């Protein structure tokens, strides 16, 4: 895997993680 492919793969994971965490209320401490 090239470095470019690695970066793409990483971004494909990180962007949804950030997006879903934001939707959840940027919940860094837990909801309860």
């Amino acid at each position: 895997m090239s470095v470019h492919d690695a970066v793409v793969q990483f971004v494909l994971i990180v962007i949804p993680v950030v997006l879903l965490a934001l939707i959840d209320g940027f919940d860094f401490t837990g909801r309860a």
Partner: protein
Amino acid sequence: MFAAHFAAALAIKDRAPRAPAWALLTGAFVPDLLWIPLAALGVEPTARAVFFDDWSHSLLTTIAWATLFAAIFWRRGAAVAVAVWLAVFSHFLLDLPIHPKPLALYPHSAVHLGIGLSQVDRATYWWVQLAVLAALTLLYVQGARRQQVPARLVAASALVVLSLHLLMR
């Protein structure tokens, strides 16, 4: 599997509301987040003929990664640590039926696990993923309703996960 990993993390979140969403979502991708640099370095080659991802994805190493990642959250309580552990281990369970190569018991093990679906065609794989994704999203929605998460947030999360799957077509 791709989008289903996110759905699994969300489903776990609703059953462990004290666990941070970012930790569960990241945890669900720990094997892939390890695989990316290992593949880029050539430790885990990605060419079909020599595909190898035992260090990032085998059963025993996934248990180890799950335990190490969950340990980071131990101070938040056992329930949170267990939820994070499950999020990481869910990656193995979801990859088990279909993966480029059957998952190994441990690195370089002759024993491989799976149910023989590794060679299905791309279209079938996409539909299988959709079915798994739908089941996990239903679990998430049920749990979110019990937790009284606002409906618009549940819908937004479900839409993001489904969109990710559609983008992977």
